[in-house]
């Protein structure tokens, strides 16, 4: 079973903004990377399952982000859309090493 992970650099931990996301463009895909107020780093697909809104620009509260298009509330931990709406977005693993933040992508 092929499970090679590709590690891509997002940037310095210190340089990541809090309260809204950082957009990472990987070819034709975008990932929204969030630094939560707990200090954790989380990454999800930068595309709301509703109408494709850019989640990196949404309000962040705790472990959730509110899509700026139509205010869907989505967990940045498991990618689940919160009620009353339904759906989910892809989540990505992250890693911090020597103050640098990496995204782990499945090849």
């Amino acid at each position, binding site marked *: 079973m092929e499970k090679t992970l590709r590690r891509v650099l997002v940037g310095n931990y210190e340089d990541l903004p809090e*309260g*809204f996301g950082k*957009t990472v*463009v990987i*070819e034709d895909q975008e990932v929204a990377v969030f630094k939560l*107020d707990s200090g954790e780093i989380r990454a999800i697909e930068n595309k709301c399952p509703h109408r*494709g809104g*850019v989640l990196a620009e949404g*309000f962040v509260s705790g472990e959730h982000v509110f899509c*700026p298009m139509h205010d869907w509330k989505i967990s940045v931990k498991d990618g689940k859309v919160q009620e009353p709406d339904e759906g989910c977005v892809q989540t990505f693993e992250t890693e911090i090493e020597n103050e640098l933040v990496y995204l782990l992508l499945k090849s």
Partner: protein
Amino acid sequence: MPKQRLVLIGNGMAGIRAVEELLKRKPNQFDIVVFGTEPYPNYNRIQLSKVLQGDTQVSDITLNEWQWYEDNNIRLYPGETVINIDKEKQLVLTDKDRQEAYDYLIIATGSNPFMLPLPGADKEGVTAFRDIKDCEKMIEYSRKYKKAAVIGGGLLGLEAARGLLNLGMDVDVIHISDFLMERQLDRAAGELLQKELEQQGMNFLLNKSTTEITGKKRVTGLKFKDGDSIDADLVVMAVGIKPNVALANESGIEVNRGIVVNDYMETNVPNVFAVGECAEHRQMVYGLVAPLYEQGQALAKRICGVDDKGYQGSVLSTQLKVSGVDVFSTGKINEDENSKAIKLYDEWNGVYKKVVVEDGILTGSVLFGDTKERTKLLSFIKKGARVEEYLESTSSDESESDIVASMPEDEVICGCNGVTKGTIVEAIKTKDLTTLEEVKGHTNASRSCGTCKSLVNDLLKLTLGDEYSADQKESICACTTLTKDEVIAKIKEKGLTNTQQVRDVLGWTSKGGCSKCKPALNYYMGMLNPKGYVDEKESRFVNERLHANIQKNGTYSVVPRMYGGVTNSDDLRKIADVADKYEVGMIKLTGGQRIDLVGIEKQDLPSIWADLDMPSGHAYAKGLRTVKTCIGASFCRFGTQDSVGMGVDLEKKFEGLNTPHKIKMSVSACPRNCAEGAVKDVGVVGLDGVWEIHVGGNGGTEMRKADLLCKVKTSEELMEIVGAFLQYYREEANYLERTSAWVERVGIEHVKAIIVEDKVKRAEYYARMEEALSVIKEPWKETIENPTLLRDLYEKVNVAAEAK
């Protein structure tokens, strides 16, 4: 357990209030007997002056009906006086030979009027002003005679004099001091009061000392120390009261000026209490109603075994209940070598204000003519606030509702009946009360002197939310139960400086807030403290955070500022060049006469702005969007005013302002209203020599025709009215409430009253508008000059394609 026997001597306000407090805490546990010398149930002595004026019956001022005594199994003996207390056997004896044993005895014998021991004081036609009997006597005299003389120019004397005027008598007020109410007012206020009352028809003889009441059997006049004399058919002595301590004294209870009590209203004799005007607490004897009720509470708690700090003394305040006169005083009224005063004296309007400050602490105040600040001052003086806090509150112009919002739950709102804010708010909530009358009925608040009515109304408003009469309390969002007004009051009260603090301190259920409250709190805090608040990017909706409108595909649009919708060839060339350079998806004219460059990538925004070198058009903002104009008098054959020039001025003045929701304006130069002012938040229409200002219009989801606010002649007036209007909207509206919804909600008449008719208010709002405007920065320029903003907000991380 057998019931405990409680005897109350004195069927007046203080004693009955203490009984009510007892019943509230322990119903059915006392066998209560009440003796009262007057043949009435407990009535509101404060409102005797109304009875005197002849249009109020005793039943109208009755506080406890006969039925109340029955309902509570109280044996009332009206017209019966206790003549002896046997403290050893715990018995009282009455003038009708009745004996009652007690476990607890409350003495609430009140005061007696102080009668000057003048020669002739026993003649017919000489009376005090203390009870219903006195009132009846005065009314009877007014039917037969013409000339009344009131000795005493204090609170009581002036109310008596006003009553006698109403009864159609000529009234001379004789006062020993050289200005009125010298115990409650300073000279300036006393003299203003005199002027006002003279206009009402009173005649004053100041600096006069009465030496004799003349006449045979019946009074015919007064003689004075200086040799003068006057005629009088009725003489009312209102020189003061003295505690009625005779019974206590004869019964061997410790008496000084009043019956001496401790903090629990206990006398030196076990199980014997004293409350009200007859009691002396920490060397103070109170002759006003408010402390009497606080004492009643302390007493009831003691008897019921409630652990309590007891009665701590009172800060008194005075209000004169004479129509047309607003006068208020509290605490220390005269400055001396240790204190300084803040004074405001407006002789023209008859307004005077003095605040006494000692070592930086507010210790007293006198207000005349305008007593709006009384609640605030009383609250500040009670808690010993520092002068800075007061001055700050004056400059931020807290309204009364802000004051009640910031009061602690246990603060007494109705001093007369000792009703706290908490009690009132709880009653409003649990009993679904919506009117002042209902609150009165359920809590006793505002039932006596009525001066707290406005506070009770404010509490209703505060508790019921903006829909004051509609009984709906609307919280900011699901993270809290607090309304916008409550949150604002708390922000002010606690000096909160960022939105996270607000959420933490005010107990938000979601620590990080939500998409509703985050931008709302950020707006409110910036509005409250334009100079000190640091705007939070993370609390801004994406459009306002990035200063561009997000489109459905994640691209953005750019609208440069074109004041009044006027552009020029240079700007157009720059726009065209930028459109080419960045391959802009579409160039579109907006509804507000601007050019919109659509379909721009986020990371290109800063360089486009740099290339354009034009200010932001704020097309994304909860703020001033555009001022649309017609061509105006310079070109149009119908135009009467320079609409373009006015539009440019308005737009330059208010650009960049944060408001609860977007603001669209227009200026037209004639009634054809080509700039469509009827559907704008502010629509200005020029007529010959006059500008009409219309507000609250909307052409979108909340379609509404604007209301005419007013007409003005000059551009200065126009700017001030529009500025004050916008500031009022900024302060009062809910976040995301358009002016159309807001004006509809509060009513245009209300807006007119504040912004058009009240020049002082208008100036205050305009001044705060100027402050808000003073801190505005052009956002595009600010961004391109700030590397951190550029990195955090606009840069994406681009990951190179994987080598295959």
